[in-house]
């Protein structure tokens, strides 16, 4: 009985916690962007405006859930669910503290890469089924961007795998007891982070949405809770990438004095703030710049990183 109940509790705690955090991120992002642009942001609803998300949710529930008559209905409906499902599935392998994980897969890292690849279907199908030229361009951009950044996202993690000697998340964190991987794997960290921004299509690399050229990109035609699923899905993905950066490069739950989970939360939160800082700072590149940056610079760098890491490991025996 214990073997069933404890995993169930963890599953629901992770689900509830992750959804709450990613909804709260909407408020956090608006406040932080405002802070860095010398304004206040939402500060009326609740203490420091923190209930703004609740107000937004009520509004989104009240909205008409419109499916355009020209859309491909089944695909249109299923597309927003895919991004939520794949991102939530990825959280299954995140180890929040020793033993505090949904499933401790021996190929946890590969599972995450597989799930984030499936996420491409969501945006590509949403863009396609909307039957709208801006959505289609957004969906095509998203597919091309996510596929090309997927490649070196996986490759950038191989340095970590080489150092840790395992695909298991717990083993990777345990391997960082001596030194966090952000020092020997600094190029890997930078490449993974950039790929993470592209995967979540956050602002410097948010070409699939690109409000000022494509209306709202692949989710132009979505409204109500379907739009909210894309929206929360994006913030879920940010939380996921931040948690994984913390796990793979910043030593996960490792740290002195404080309990492991607190360390994990602090590291994840810091990376999330970095995501928002990047959004506050950087403008969006042109689409061809994005692709040539990915294929001509990031991919060779990721390969070089693997070669050098592997070579050094071989030399040391």
């Amino acid at each position, binding site marked *: 009985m214990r073997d069933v109940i404890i995993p169930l509790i963890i599953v629901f705690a992770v689900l509830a916690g992750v959804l709450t955090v990613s909804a709260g991120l909407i408020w956090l992002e608006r406040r932080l962007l405002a802070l*860095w642009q*010398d*304004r206040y942001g939402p500060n009326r609803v609740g203490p420091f405006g923190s209930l703004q998300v609740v107000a937004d949710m009520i509004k989104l529930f009240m909205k008409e859930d419109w499916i355009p008559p020209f859309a491909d209905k089944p695909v249109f409906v299923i597309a927003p669910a895919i991004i939520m499902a794949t991102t939530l599935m990825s959280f299954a392998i995140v180890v929040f503290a020793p033993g505090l994980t949904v499933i401790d897969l021996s190929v946890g890292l590969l599972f995450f890469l597989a799930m984030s690849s499936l996420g491409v279907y969501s945006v590509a199908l949403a863009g396609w089924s909307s039957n709208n030229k801006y959505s289609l361009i957004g969906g095509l951009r998203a597919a091309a961007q996510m596929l090309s950044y997927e490649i070196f996202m996986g490759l950038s993690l191989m340095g970590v795998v080489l150092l840790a000697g395992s695909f298991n998340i717990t083993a990777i964190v345990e391997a960082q007891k001596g030194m966090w991987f952000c020092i020997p794997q600094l190029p890997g960290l930078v490449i993974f982070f950039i790929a993470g921004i592209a995967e979540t299509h956050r602002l410097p690399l948010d070409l699939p949405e690109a409000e000022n050229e494509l209306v709202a990109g692949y989710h132009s035609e979505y409204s109500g809770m379907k739009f909210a699923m894309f929206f929360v899905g994006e913030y879920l993905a940010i939380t996921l990438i931040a948690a994984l950066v913390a796990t793979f490069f910043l030593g996960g739950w490792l740290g002195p004095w404080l309990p492991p989970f607190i360390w994990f939360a602090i590291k994840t939160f810091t990376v999330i703030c970095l995501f928002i800082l990047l959004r506050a*700072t950087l403008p969006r590149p042109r689409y061809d710049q994005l692709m040539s940056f990915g294929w001509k610079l990031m991919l060779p760098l990721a390969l070089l990183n693997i070669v050098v890491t592997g070579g050094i490991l071989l030399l040391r025996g």
Partner: protein
Amino acid sequence: MFGIISGLWKVLLHTFRRRVTIQYPEQKAYMPPRWRGRIILSRDPEGGERCVACYLCAVACPVGCISLQSAEDEHGRRYPEFFRINFSRCIFCGLCEEACPTYAIQLTPDYEMGEFNRQEMVYEKEDLLIAGEGKYKGYNFYKVAGVSIADKDKGQAQNESPPVDRHDLLP
């Protein structure tokens, strides 16, 4: 790469900057006295209505939001029987104030005029008239103008010479 990092650092330093937002309902922005806001009708120093119902404001108004009807009281003074401004049309251009020969119609720095009901945007004379003189103090049209009213004939106004008998000037 260095550019990106220094940019991130500069944005991060904005954490400690003063926020420029004016938190509106609690804090209010300074409105200059000549701000073109809610329109009022002022009174002369003796407390009478300044408006002489000359219709110049209604003619000058580019959106036609002023309507009035002139009348004359027992002293021979003209005044508006009704004076109505439809603020849902008003564009606050201030041309009525420029057109007014008696400083009666004036624009004020008040801008908080939101209503839930459109009809409430129509202001009648009672809503427009204020107790004081507004921006132009000490001006009384009938004291300086050569118009005869009950207790003042032609030539009795301030700085006004007595009327000339034109037949006197004939050679």
